[in-house]
C-alpha cells in the first residue's frame, strides 16, 4: 500500500500487470470458493462420521444412507444461503470499513430492494407484459432497478441520518440507524398495504423454467429422489458471483476504490491528500446499498412472497457473517456469509435426523449454528480473515 501510494495513482493504473490485475480481482473469489469447498467437505465429513457413530441408535431407517441421500441438496441449500448472507454482509462491512459504524438499517435497504422488485413485477403484470417478457431481460432489469433504488436510498439515509452525527459519540449514529431501520419497515408496510400490493407481497416472475436436476439419489431399490437446483437459486448464485467480481474490481483497481481504501485507512490524512471524504463515504453507501438492493431482488424472486419485516433476520445474520469474517474486510464478509450459510443449512437439515425427530432442525438451527460461531470467535476474535489480510475497506 505504502509503495503504491508513492508511485501515484495514475501510474499504478496504467502499469498494473495482467497478473496483479487477475490476482486482485479474482484472488478473493478464489478464496471464497476454497471456503465453499472447505465448508462442504468439513461439514459433510462431520455428518457422515456422526451418522456412522449413531448408526446403531436408529433401527427404523438406515441413518447413513439417509444422510448421504440428502447431502448434495443440503450443500446446494447452504451455498444459496451463504451467498445471500455474503451479498448483504458486504454492505455492513464496507460501511464499517470507512466509518467504523454499524449501519443497522442495511437489512431494511435489502427489504426495500425486494419490494422494488415486487412493485416492478406487479406493474408488469398489470400491463400484461410479464408473461411475454424474456426472463433474462426481466432479471437484468429488476436487478438494476433494485440496485438503483436501494443505492440511492442508502445514500440519502447517510446524508439525512448519519452525516449530521459524524462528530457525535459512537453510540449516537448507532441509535439513529436503529431508528431508520424501524422507520423504513413501517413506511414500507404503509406503502405496501395501501397500494394493493398487500402485506404479503407477491413477487411474480416470468416462467423461469423447471428446477435443474443434477443427479438422482437412490433411496430404495426402486425409488430415487432428485438432487435439484431451482433456476431462481442458480440465478442468485450467478448474479452474486458477478457482483463480487465487480466489487473486487471496483475496490482494488479503480481510483475510486483506492480513495475508499484510503479513507478507510486514515480519514484525516486521506482528506489532506485531496480526497473528498464526504463524497467517498456517500459513494460507499451507494455501492453497499446497491449490493443490498440486488440481493433483495434476487431473494424476493427466489422466495416468491415478501413482507416488510423480511429484512430483519437476514440483516442480523449478515451482520454476524461480517463479524465472523472479520468486519471491515470485504473478502472476510463473503467468507463469513458462506460459512454461516453452510452451518445453518447443515444443522437445520440434519438435527432432526440425528435426534430421531426429537428436535426440529428448522427451529433449533440457530442454537447450534451460533454456538459454533461463538466458538470460532472465541478462538479467532478478529474473525476468520481478520489477521490474514490486513487490507481494509
Amino acid at each position: 500500500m505504502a509503495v503504491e501510494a508513492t508511485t501515484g495513482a495514475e501510474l499504478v493504473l496504467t502499469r498494473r500487470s495482467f497478473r496483479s490485475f487477475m490476482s486482485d480481482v479474482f484472488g478473493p473469489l478464489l478464496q471464497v470458493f476454497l471456503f465453499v469447498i472447505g465448508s462442504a467437505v468439513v461439514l459433510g465429513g462431520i455428518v457422515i462420521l456422526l451418522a456412522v457413530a449413531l448408526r446403531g441408535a436408529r433401527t427404523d431407517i438406515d441413518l447413513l444412507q439417509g444422510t448421504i441421500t440428502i447431502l448434495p441438496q443440503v450443500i446446494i441449500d447452504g451455498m444459496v444461503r451463504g451467498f445471500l448472507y455474503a451479498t448483504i454482509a458486504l454492505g455492513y462491512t464496507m460501511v464499517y470499513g470507512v466509518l467504523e459504524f454499524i449501519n443497522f438499517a442495511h437489512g431494511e435497504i435489502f427489504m426495500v430492494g425486494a419490494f422494488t422488485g415486487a412493485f416492478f413485477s406487479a406493474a408488469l403484470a398489470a400491463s400484461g407484459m410479464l408473461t411475454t417478457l424474456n426472463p433474462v431481460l426481466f432479471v437484468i432489469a429488476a436487478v438494476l432497478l433494485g440496485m438503483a433504488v436501494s443505492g440511492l436510498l442508502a445514500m440519502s439515509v447517510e446524508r439525512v441520518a448519519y452525516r449530521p452525527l459524524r462528530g457525535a459519540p459512537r453510540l449516537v449514529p448507532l441509535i439513529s440507524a436503529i431508528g431508520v431501520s424501524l422507520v423504513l419497515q413501517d413506511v414500507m408496510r404503509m406503502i405496501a398495504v395501501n397500494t394493493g400490493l398487500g402485506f404479503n407481497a407477491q413477487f411474480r416472475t416470468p416462467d423461469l423454467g423447471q428446477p435443474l436436476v443434477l443427479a438422482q439419489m437412490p433411496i430404495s431399490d426402486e425409488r430415487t429422489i432428485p438432487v435439484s437446483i431451482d433456476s431462481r437459486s442458480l440465478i442468485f448464485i450467478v448474479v452474486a458471483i458477478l457482483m463480487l467480481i465487480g466489487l473486487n474490481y471496483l475496490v482494488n483497481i479503480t481510483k475510486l476504490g483506492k480513495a475508499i481504501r484510503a479513507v478507510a485507512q486514515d480519514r484525516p490524512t486521506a482528506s489532506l491528500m485531496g480526497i473528498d471524504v464526504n463524497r467517498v463515504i456517500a459513494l460507499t453507501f451507494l455501492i453497499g446499498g446497491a449490493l443490498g438492493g440486488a440481493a433483495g431482488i434476487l431473494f424476493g424472486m427466489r422466495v416468491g412472497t415478501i413482507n416488510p419485516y423480511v429484512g430483519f433476520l437476514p440483516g442480523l445474520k449478515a451482520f454476524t457473517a461480517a463479524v465472523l469474517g472479520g468486519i471491515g474486510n470485504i473478502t472476510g464478509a463473503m467468507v463469513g456469509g458462506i460459512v454461516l450459510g453452510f452451518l445453518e443449512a447443515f444443522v437445520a437439515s440434519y438435527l432432526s435426523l440425528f435426534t430421531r425427530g426429537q428436535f426440529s432442525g428448522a427451529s433449533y438451527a440457530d442454537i447450534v449454528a451460533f454456538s459454533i460461531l461463538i466458538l470460532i470467535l472465541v478462538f479467532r476474535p478478529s474473525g476468520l480473515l481478520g489477521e490474514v489480510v490486513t487490507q481494509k475497506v
Partner: protein
Amino acid sequence: MMKRVSAFLIFALLGALLAACGAPAAPTPTVAPTTPPTEATAAPAPTTPPPAGGMTGVIKIATQSPLSGPQAALGVGIRNGAELGLEQLGKILTDMGFTVELAPFDDQAKPEVGSANAKNIISDNDILCLVGHLNSGVALASLPDYQAASLVMVSPANTNPKITESGYPNAFRIVGRDDVQGAVGEEFARTELKINSVYIIHDKTDYGQGVAEFFRQNAEKNGIQVLGFEGTEEQSVFDSILTPIQAANPDLIYFGGIYNQAAPLFKQARDRGITAAFLGPDGLDSPDLLKVAGDAVKGMYYTSVAAPVSQFPDAAKFAEDYQAKYNEAAPPFSAQAYDAMGICLQAIAKAAETANGKPTRAQVLEAMKTLGAYKGITGTYEFNAKGDPVKATYFVLQVSTEAGDPAEVWNKNAVVKRLEIAAP
C-alpha cells in the same frame, strides 16, 4: 447555539407527547379509530318511547382481531362482520333507549398485544361483550383479563380446545374444535386421499401446533406413517425444511398453521418438484393462500370450521351487504363474526330486561349462560356448559381450480364433505 436550542425544544416536545400518550397504561393501546355510534335512525322513528328505568347510556361491544400485519385479511373481515352485525342487529338495544358503539382493537395476531388490549378493554366499563379473536394463542393470553372482569368473549374463529377446556366461565365460541378438526382431516386423508405416510409441519402457536398434534395422534392410531413432525416460525425461506421432506418422500404434507406461512411453503415445495398432496386446517382459509401460492394450491383440500359465505343460504343478504359496504367479497369468518355480534347483542338485551337498566358484565354473563338457541345466518347456536356449541359443523373443502381474481375464485371453493359433530 440556535440550532442546539431548537433541537432541544423538539426533544422536549417529543418527550411531552410520549408522556401524554403513555400516561394511562404502560403498553400503548392499539385502538383503531372508533366508528361513529350506529344510530337506528334509518329505521322508522321509534314508536315506543324509551321505557322507564335506566335504559339509557352507551353500550360498547369490542372486537379484537389482527387489523394490521400478515393476517389482517381475516382480522379485518372479523371487525367488518361485527360492525355490520351491530348496524343491522343493534336495533334490539337502541329500541330500548341505549346508544351502541363498536370498539375495534387490533391484536396484531400477537399474544402480548392482545393481552395489553384486554387490560384496556376491561378498564372501559361501557364494554359489555367482546367479539374475537382470530388466533387461539392470542385469545388464551387475553382470557384471564376478561375473566377477571367477567367480560363475555364470543369467538367467531378460535378452535383450540383449551379455549373452552380451561375453565373460563366467560369463554364462548360458535365454531368447532381442533381435536375434532384434526380427526376430521386425518380421516379424510386416510379414507379419501388414501395416503400411507404424512409429514407434519406446524407454526409453533397454540392453534397450529394444537391441530397438528391432533392430526398426528389420529394418524399414528390409524396406522399412517408419520415421517416427520416439525415446527417453524420461518416466513419466507423453507429450504431446510423441504430438504428432509424431499428425502422422506411422504404422500401428504399436513401444515398446521395460518395461510401466510403455508402459501410460500407450498409454493416452494412445488417449485422443488415435491409431489405430495397438501392438507391443512381452517387457518388456510383465505384468498391470500391462492394469491401467493397460485397453481401450487389449486385443487388442494383443507378442513374448516367455517365454510365460505356462499355455503350458508341464510347469509346471502350478508354477502351482498358486505360487498356493498366494504367493496370486497366477505372473507371467511366475517359471517361468523356477524353471528357472534348477534349473540352478544341478544345476551345484553336479555340482561338489560332482567336488570331493568344498563346491565353489568356479570349480568350479561348470566344471561349468556341461559340464552337458549340463537338462530344466526351461519347456523343455530346453543352453548353447552363449557361454552362450546352443542353441535358444530365441520367441512372439508377443495380449492377451486378456476382462473381469475383469487378473492372471487376463493368463494367458489367446493365443499367436499360436511359433518355435524357434537362437542366432545
